[in-house]
């Protein structure tokens, strides 16, 4: 058990190190930030001063080590556009993003898991077919198309809801629904197939044959086993709470982290992009690690087994 957790933890650290390296390589080797920010016409002494201020005149390996050090100290640089610390810029956007992604996660869980379970338990029924159609639609309709279609119906045609912005709670409805519906469909499909796989196992037949009521078989034998793959996908969804709304925020002009990322990418604002990248990596790794720990609790086989 301890060994299992230790290996998972080491993997998480490696992932973080890989993301930091990725950020460094991409952000530093892609071009001279001094020239990009100051423009090619800037006088050489201004560019030299900029390089010195940002440590860009050091050899690249030195910059790499300094970079790790700075991140360990929580120094993520300043926005090269307005000079404010990147971490502050990102932090002030987090509540707006969570205001969309947390209710959306709730919709996904409350809609997706029961729908998937019901569909699996009543295979071939009308509701099962409806769930499958919705799941396929959730997979093939891009979120910006879903969002814009909702705008077309509820904002343009019916005039019930605003089409974008962040002034009142009514502005949040369409983005939350857009995020929630797509995710719920994916989760329903996942839960359904996990449940179906478990229901086909010999131990379910054995439990039924022993005379245990079907309801108890489902809650006592099927659900705990089907929970394992479902927890994985839910963990992934928790990991994307920060980063999962990039497109939807852009559709609805919602001033969250995703919108900030798109603007920072368009402006080539190094510090802000890398700060968001690291933040996303940290949330993903943290939620993956939590899922791994949950596995250890949910699946007794993993407690004694060697982790692979």
């Amino acid at each position, binding site marked *: 058990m301890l060994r299992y957790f230790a290996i998972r933890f080491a*993997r998480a650290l*490696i*992932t973080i190190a*890989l*993301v930091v390296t*990725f*950020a460094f390589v*991409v*952000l530093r080797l*892609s*071009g001279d930030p001094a020239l990009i920010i100051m423009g090619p016409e800037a006088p050489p002494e201004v560019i030299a001063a900029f390089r010195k201020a940002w440590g860009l005149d050091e050899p690249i390996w030195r910059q790499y080590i300094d970079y790790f050090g700075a991140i360990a100290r929580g120094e993520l640089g300043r926005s090269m556009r307005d000079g404010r610390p990147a971490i502050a810029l990102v932090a002030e956007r987090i509540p707006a993003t969570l205001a969309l992604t947390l209710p959306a996660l709730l919709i996904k869980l409350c809609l997706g898991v029961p729908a998937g379970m019901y569909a699996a338990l009543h295979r071939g029924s009308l509701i099962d077919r409806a769930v499958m159609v919705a799941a*396929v639609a959730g*997979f*093939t*309709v*891009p*979120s*910006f*198309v879903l969002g*814009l*279609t909702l*705008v*077309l119906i509820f904002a*343009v045609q019916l005039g019930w809801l605003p*089409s974008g912005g962040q002034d009142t709670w009514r502005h949040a409805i369409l983005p939350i629904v857009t995020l929630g519906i797509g995710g719920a469909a994916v989760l329903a499909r996942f839960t359904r*197939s996990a449940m179906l*796989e478990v229901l086909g196992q010999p131990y379910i037949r054995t439990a039924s044959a022993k005379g245990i009521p079907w309801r108890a078989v489902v809650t006592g034998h099927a659900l705990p086993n089907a929970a394992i793959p479902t927890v994985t996908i839910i963990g992934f969804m928790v*990991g*994307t709470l920060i*980063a*999962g709304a*990039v*497109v939807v925020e*852009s*559709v609805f002009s919602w001033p969250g982290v995703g919108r900030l*990322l*798109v603007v*920072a*990418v*368009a402006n*080539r604002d*190094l510090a802000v*992009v*890398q700060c*968001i*990248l690291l933040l*996303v*990596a940290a949330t*993903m*790794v943290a939620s*993956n690690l939590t899922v791994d720990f949950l596995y250890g609790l949910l699946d007794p086989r993993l407690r004694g087994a060697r982790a692979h």
Partner: protein
Amino acid sequence: MADIPLPRTRVARKLPLIGDISPFVALAIAWVVAMLVVALFADWLAPYGLTRMDLRNRLALPGNAEHWLGTDELGRDVLSRLIFSVRISLLIAFGATAISAVLGTTLGFLAAHFRGFVEQIVLTLADFQASMPFLILALAVLAFFGNALPLLVCLIGLYGWERYARIARGLAIAASAQGYAAAIRQLGATPARIYFRHILPNIASTLIVSMTLVFPEVILLESGLSFLGLGVQPPMSSLGNMVSYGREYISRAPWIMLAPAVTIICTTLAVSVIGDWLRDRLDPTLK
């Protein structure tokens, strides 16, 4: 000495018969073929040029004789723009899928062949790729390398490689233990020959099924990037660009947005349907 027939280690696969294709799958295949024809013959099929403006016919409604799908606010023919966009989107999707399949399969084979350290590196990279939202990584790269078309194709080509790598590694390890691989090795074949001439054909069906499952996601990824204005750049146009452009006119001329949106949905849906069907046909072991 009596002839003893050799036991067949592999049962010949039943090839799909035309007769038992469901109408749904037939429709999906027809749609994909139509899209391929549109992409290949865009220059002949498009009634107008990509940027040809008809200023007397701006925001014309769909369904008129001159412009079947109407025009945008510069009087450009929506149907023609749609046809050229399909070409760009499919070009990127096919290019990217090919890159990620080749890259993933090669890395998977390397992991299966060398095991040990190399295998650990490939698996760690695969874990990394699977655990990070690809859109964020792609945005970071695009921010600093710009969005030239070849770079965009290569970048999207990094999407999904880890799935091929995992499948190729697992199947290659299993295949190496089988008689045919051992036999060809005893005959002195090089590892590259064993993997690409003997093992690859045997596991190709599983990889092809994976490709059809990744392909719709690649289309969605490209259209998402283009929608954000960070993918294909004007004057070129992809389906995502068209939706993004059309949202400006969503109240006055929704057809500008709806035409490419419907095309994206139908294409991803059709490829998914074909992928599911192929999976059931060729490889029941894949869930």
